[in-house]
C-alpha cells in the first residue's frame, strides 16, 4: 500500500501548501494576460512598444502600425467592433479607449466575464501616466515606465525650449492651422493631441475657438485669421496632396500658402501613443 499514514500526511501537507499559494498563482496569472485584444490603434501601438506584440490576439481594422499589427487578426472597426469576433479570440484582457470605443461594448464584455482595461488618457499631458497605468495591468511595468519617461522627457524638452515663446505676446506667436481633411475642411480643434502639440511648441492654433475637437471649419474664417503655417495630416488610402490642391488654391491669399509654409506630415500625432514625440518634432519643420 503506498497510502501509508506517513504518505497521507505528506500529501496533506502538499495540498495545504498548494492551497495557501493558489491565490498568489491566480493573481500572477491574472496580472499578466496572455491573449490581449486591442480595440484602438493607439493602444495597439503602445502594446507593441511595450514588447507585447506576440501576446496580442486581435486588433481593429484601423490598426496599421507597426507593420506587424496589420498581420494580426481583425475584430472590426473602432466604433463597431464585433463582439463575436472578440469572444472567439478567447482574450484574457480587452484593452479599450474612451476615445472612439462605445461604452456599452465594455459593459457587454464585462457581463460576459471578460476582463477589460479602459485607457482614459486623451491629452498629451496625460499620456505618460496612462502608459504607466496600462503597463501595470498588462504586466510590463518596467518597460512602460521607461517608455513613459521617454515621452515625459520629450515633452519637458520642448516645454523648456519654448518656454520663452509661450509666455511671449500672442502677436509674435506663429499662427497655425492643422488640416485633418481638406474637402470639406476639417481641422484639429481644441482638446486634440495636435492642438496640445501646437501649444507645446509655442504656436497658436487658429481653430482653438471652435466648439468641437474636429470642427468643419469656415474657409472664410481661415482667410481672415491668416495662419502663418498650415500642416496637412496624412490620410489613409489616398494621396492627400491631390485632395488638398483645391483648398490650398482657395486659401491662396493666406500667408502660409503665399510663403510656401504648407507642410505635409505623417499621422504620428493622430494617435495618443509612442509616436507623439516624433510627431511634435515633425511640426518643428516649419521653423527651418
Amino acid at each position, binding site marked *: 500500500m503506498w497510502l501509508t499514514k506517513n504518505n497521507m500526511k505528506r500529501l496533506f501537507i502538499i495540498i495545504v501548501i498548494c492551497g495557501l499559494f493558489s491565490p498568489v498563482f491566480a493573481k500572477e496569472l491574472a496580472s499578466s494576460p496572455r491573449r490581449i485584444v486591442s480595440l484602438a490603434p493607439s493602444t495597439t501601438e503602445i502594446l507593441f512598444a511595450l514588447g507585447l506584440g506576440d501576446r496580442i490576439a486581435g486588433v481593429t481594422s484601423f490598426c496599421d502600425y507597426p507593420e506587424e499589427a496589420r498581420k494580426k487578426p481583425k475584430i472590426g472597426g473602432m466604433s463597431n467592433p464585433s463582439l463575436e469576433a472578440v469572444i472567439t479570440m478567447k482574450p484574457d484582457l480587452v484593452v479599450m479607449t474612451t476615445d472612439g470605443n462605445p461604452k456599452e461594448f465594455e459593459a457587454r464584455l464585462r457581463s460576459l466575464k471578460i476582463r477589460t482595461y479602459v485607457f482614459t488618457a486623451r491629452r498629451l499631458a496625460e499620456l505618460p501616466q496612462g502608459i504607466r497605468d496600462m503597463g501595470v495591468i498588462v504586466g510590463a511595468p518596467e518597460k512602460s515606465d521607461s517608455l513613459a519617461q521617454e515621452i515625459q522627457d520629450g515633452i519637458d524638452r520642448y516645454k523648456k525650449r519654448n518656454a520663452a515663446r509661450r509666455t511671449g505676446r500672442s502677436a509674435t506667436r506663429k499662427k497655425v492651422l492643422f488640416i485633418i481633411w481638406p474637402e*470639406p475642411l476639417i481641422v484639429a480643434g481644441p482638446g486634440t493631441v495636435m492642438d496640445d502639440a501646437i501649444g507645446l511648441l509655442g504656436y497658436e492654433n487658429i481653430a482653438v475657438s471652435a466648439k468641437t475637437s474636429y470642427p468643419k471649419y469656415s474657409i*472664410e474664417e481661415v482667410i481672415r485669421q491668416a495662419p502663418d503655417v498650415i500642416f496637412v495630416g496624412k490620410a489613409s488610402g489616398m494621396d492627400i496632396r491631390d485632395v488638398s490642391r483645391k483648398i490650398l488654391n482657395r486659401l491662396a491669399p493666406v500667408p502660409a500658402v503665399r510663403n510656401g509654409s504648407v507642410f505635409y506630415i505623417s499621422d504620428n500625432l493622430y494617435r495618443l501613443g509612442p509616436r507623439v514625440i516624433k510627431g511634435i518634432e515633425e511640426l518643428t519643420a516649419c521653423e527651418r
Partner: protein
Amino acid sequence: MRTVRFGIFIIAAAMILALALFAGPRMINPFHLSGTEREILFAIRLPRVVVAMLMGMALGASGAILQGVLRNPLADPYILGISSGASLAAALGLMSGFYFFGSLSVPVAAFIGATLVSLLVGAFGWKRGGLWPERLLLAGIGLNFLFSAVLMLLMSVSSDEGLRRAVLWMFGDLSMADWTLIPPASAFVVVGLGIAFARSKALNALILGDEFAHSLGFAVQRERLFMFAAMALMTSASVSLGGTIGFIGLLMPHIVRFLLGADSRVLIPASAVAGGAFLCLADLIGRSLMPPMELPSGTVTAVIGAPYFLYLLRRKDVLSV
C-alpha cells in the same frame, strides 16, 4: 392679386439672397470692402450663394414636376434613388481610384451616377411604349433601397478615411462651392427649367389624369418623358454641385401651392425661386449658428423645413398635387 403675391414672393427671395451674400458670423459691407473682404466675397461667398441658389432651384422645380408626374404629394427627387445612386457612384469612383478629374472627380462621378440611375428608373418605369407613374415610383423606391444598402455596406467594410469623408460630403455640404462647377451646372438647370416651364400646361393636364390630358390633345407619354428628363437633368446637376440636400424638393411645391395656387405654370418657377432662397437661408444659418464651425446645410433645411411642413399639413384640409 396673384401677380402681386408673386411680386412679393420674388422680392422676398431677392432679399434673402442679398442677406446670404453679405450677412453671416461676420458682416461684409458692400460699400466698404477691404482686400481680404473682397477676396472672401468674390472667391467664397458669391460662388457659395450661387451654388445654393442653383441647387435649391433645381430641387424645388424637380419636386414640383415629380409630384405632378407621379400624381403623388409625397414625391421628391430623391425618392427615386437618384441621390443614393449618385453617392454610391461617387464612393465607388473613389474606391477604384477614379481621379481623372482631380478635385472634380467626386462631382463628376456623382453626376454620372445620378444620370445612370435616372435612366435605370426610366427603364423600369417603361412599359407598353411609355412611362407609368406607379411603375416609376415603385422602381425608384426599390432602387433607392438597393443603392442605400450597398452604400452602407461599403461604408461598414471600408476603413478608408477619404471615402468616409467624401460620402459625408454627399450629405449636403456647400462649403467647397467654387466657380468651376457653376457654368455646366447652371446650363443643366436652365435647360431643365426651360423644358419644364414650356411644358407646364401639359403637366396641369397630366395631373388631372391621362385620359383627360389625352382628350385635351396632349401626347401623354411624350409629355411625361419630357418632364421626367427635365427633372433628371436638374436633380443630377444639383447632386453633383453639393450632394444630397433633403426636404427642399418635397417642401417647396407644397408651400408654393399654399401661397400661390397649384397652377404648374406658376408652381414650377415659383418652387424654383422658393427653393433657391430657402437653401441660401439654410446655408446662412448653418454657417452663422456656431462660428467658426459650419453645420451642413442639408441638416439645417430638414430641421427648419420639417416643422413648417407639419404646420402647413395641420392647416390644410385636402392635400393635392
